[in-house]
């Protein structure tokens, strides 16, 4: 078991390094010279050289990349002398456009992303799983057909369109909700909730629809399995069958999928945050891409990949506990 865990972690680190190398190389090749950007309107070639030296941009690619990796592990400093800036470990980079370390920018915005992710996750799990279960149990009825149609619509609706639609209907026409405005929870919990409600709904709808379909088909499959027939033949009541025998094999794949989806969301739901103006990590990514703030883009990309890869590992390990068949294999 520990061997398996170590192997998985090693391979996760390997993938992360590879992603960082790939991303670094792509931006190295494609990005316009950051020194020229920082230099501004009235620039001279001498000044550009000075800035490049400060940022370490005159070093060869491999050296720059290694410095970057070293920064993540041990922290690093940029430039020399009075104008040197230090960046504590893990240093994901330093934005010279905003004079902040990328890690600081991300940690400032992470709470918003986490709120969006957690709220949406609660919503989609509740709605998706229970909807799917109900559909499976009432297979073939009007409820089932209706729910599955809604689910199909849910996965086909682009979330920015839904966002606009909801805003138009709920805020402009019916005026049920006030338009989104960032308010800290402590100050006005009701307003805070109203602020996040639409982003949660928009994000959750797609996932809930997907999960409902998945849960439904898994439960139906499980209910049709041989061991279920045995349980029914033994005379066990239906709810008990459902709870004790059907749920676990049916929901195991959902758990693992949820791990992946949630991990992905922690890297920032870019479109949702942008459309609703939420200052989260996703919006940071979108804004930095618009401003071509390369260190920030790098940092956010790595962070998002980190969550996904870790999520993968967690999910794999969880699976060995949840699915006995898998456990045997890895022993």
């Amino acid at each position, binding site marked *: 078991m520990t061997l398996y865990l170590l192997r998985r972690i090693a391979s996760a680190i390997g993938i992360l390094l590879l992603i960082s190398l790939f991303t670094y190389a792509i931006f190295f090749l494609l990005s316009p010279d950051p020194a020229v950007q920082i230099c501004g309107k009235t620039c001279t070639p001498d000044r550009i050289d000075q800035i490049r030296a400060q940022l370490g941009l005159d070093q060869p690619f491999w050296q720059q990349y290694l410095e970057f990796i070293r920064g993540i592990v041990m922290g690093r400093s940029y430039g020399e002398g009075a104008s040197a800036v230090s960046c504590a470990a893990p240093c994901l980079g330093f934005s010279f456009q905003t004079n902040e370390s990328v890690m600081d920018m991300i940690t400032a*915005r992470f709470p918003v992303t986490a709120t969006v992710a957690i709220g949406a996750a609660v919503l989609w799990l509740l709605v998706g799983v229970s909807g799917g279960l109900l559909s499976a149990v009432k297979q073939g009825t009007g409820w089932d057909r209706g729910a599955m149609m809604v689910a199909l619509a849910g996965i086909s609706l682009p979330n920015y369109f839904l966002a606009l639609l909801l805003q138009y209907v709920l805020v402009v026409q019916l005026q049920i909700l006030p338009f989104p405005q960032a308010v800290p929870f402590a100050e006005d919990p009701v307003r805070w909730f109203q602020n996040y409600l639409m982003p949660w709904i928009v994000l959750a709808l797609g996932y809930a629809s997907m999960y409902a379909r998945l849960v439904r088909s898994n439960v139906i499959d499980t209910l049709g399995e041989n061991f279920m027939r045995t349980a029914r033949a033994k005379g066990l009541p239906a709810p008990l069958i459902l709870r004790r025998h059907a749920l676990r094999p049916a929901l195991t794949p959902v758990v693992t999928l949820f791990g992946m989806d949630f991990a992905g969301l922690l890297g920032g739901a870019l479109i949702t945050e942008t459309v609703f103006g939420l200052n989260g990590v996703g919006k940071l990514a979108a804004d930095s891409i618009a401003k071509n703030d390369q260190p920030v883009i790098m940092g956010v990309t790595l962070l998002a990949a980190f969550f996904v890869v870790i999520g993968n590992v967690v999910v794999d390990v969880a699976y060995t506990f949840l699915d006995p068949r898998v456990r045997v294999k890895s022993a």
Partner: protein
Amino acid sequence: MKQRFSIPALAAAAVLLLAGCTSAGSGSGGDGPSSTPVKGGTVDVLLNADFSHLDPVQGFDGGVNNFYRLIYRTLTTQSTGEGAKGTEMVPDLATDLGTVSDDGLQWTFTLKDDLKFEDGTPITSKDVKFGVERSFDPAIAVGSPYARLTIAGADSYEGPYITGDLPSIQTPDDQTIVFTLKEPFADFASVVGQNSFTPFPADTERVTTTSLDKMPIASGPYKVDSYERGSQLKLVRNDSWDPKTDDVRKAYPDGFDFTFGLDASTIDERMIAGQGDDANAIAGSVQAASISRIQTPALKARTIAGLQGCTTYMGLNTTKPNMDNPLVRQAIAYAIDRESVKDASGGSQLADIATTMLPPTVAGHTEFDLYPSKDNAGDPEKAKELLAEAGLPDGFSFTLDIRSQPKMQAQAEAVQQALAKAGITVNFNLIDTSTYYEVIGTTSQQNDAAITGWCPDWASGSTFLPPLFDGSQIFPKGNSNIAQLNDPAVNERIAEIRAMTDTDEANAAWGALDEQIQKLVPTVPLLFEKTVMVVGANVAGAYSHAGYSGGIDYVSVGLSSAGK
């Protein structure tokens, strides 16, 4: 329809200002944005983008320049008031607009008494000198360039952190500061109003290249209480600021709350609804989509409009094939449909047609239209004639650099459509918003034409025409003369006007030069864009300042009633 800030309009504004002092605290609404504010309360400012830098040596755009006046003071500054009155230079830290030596190379300023930083320590001439020296450090020299361009010894000097002392700025005593220039500069009184002339305690340990962006040291009526980059900035009163030393700033509110990162449409919604604390809020210009929603009398009463003071134009790269032919450039000037470009920018409330490069808010602006067409809709027939004359009877095609931002794209599409009628095919080269100015400012990378804008650094033709049209100002990188115009007659005339000491004469000369340059068609002026701003019902003292891109002058604004 041109907007002019004529005497009658100013007089009307003055009357309103005087008459506006009716019952303070009269119910829910205020007395309108032009009434005089009361002391107290907090003004909320809703913004889409954050300020680029809190360090005045690095920040350099209309919005941030306006903000700096709340926390910083410079030797001189722009006045307050609408139109030309607002862009006049008046003394701020200095007692007057400076005395110049006979050879025009030395400028002396005397500081007022009782000037203090926010911690109570006095502001001396050494602190002003330190502030200016900082603007030479290559690491942070991204803001106003005028100190580096005018002061002697700039070429080898790299700022107080690297080189040390700059001898061409002398401080014989705590109240006096003397600048030695490279060559005479008649407008130096305007130069010392630039952001880089903000004083800071002359201590390289305390004030570094990065410390001010995090926590400024205020010399103005307010100081920074808290700053969360990208989301919020709070200002509170700076008790060390003595109102008796300041004729420009009224400092009515007790504080300002800036909120950043708001979506532009959301800002419009909130300003239109004006609920709760938003009654104390101001913001930037509304989107085109909101214009039709602010036509009711109630909203019109809360709406302020003004010219941005900038010119939107299309630069034609005269070094490229076809573009080097004046007949071709004239054809383009005739074919352009300015009406559709105006519509693309939001219609008549958000833009005026421009046929000159100098905007109406710059002294010396003269009206002319060298390439007229009916209703400014373009004259494709005349364009075709000129093209045939130039040997291109079947038209031609060229590449237009455009910035991937919705309004500029829409403007470019309007240009494309209009030129197509004259047989000219326009291909787009879409450039990222963040690198756009870098690309068009690099002579090796720019294409045949580009749509861009220019705002004067202060309201004089000297900050407008030379950067755009002086042949000696063509740089391989960071170039503003994107037409790459290098005409000996023009260059000579620019040098002549620069040397003039009579500002009125110089202004008139700039105006005439504008027309002379347009005969060569290096650029096609398109629009003078306007700001339309909705303010909260409780806001007072708000007007559009022509020196800050038409934004609301922060140092004059306040609330009608401070109970809220």
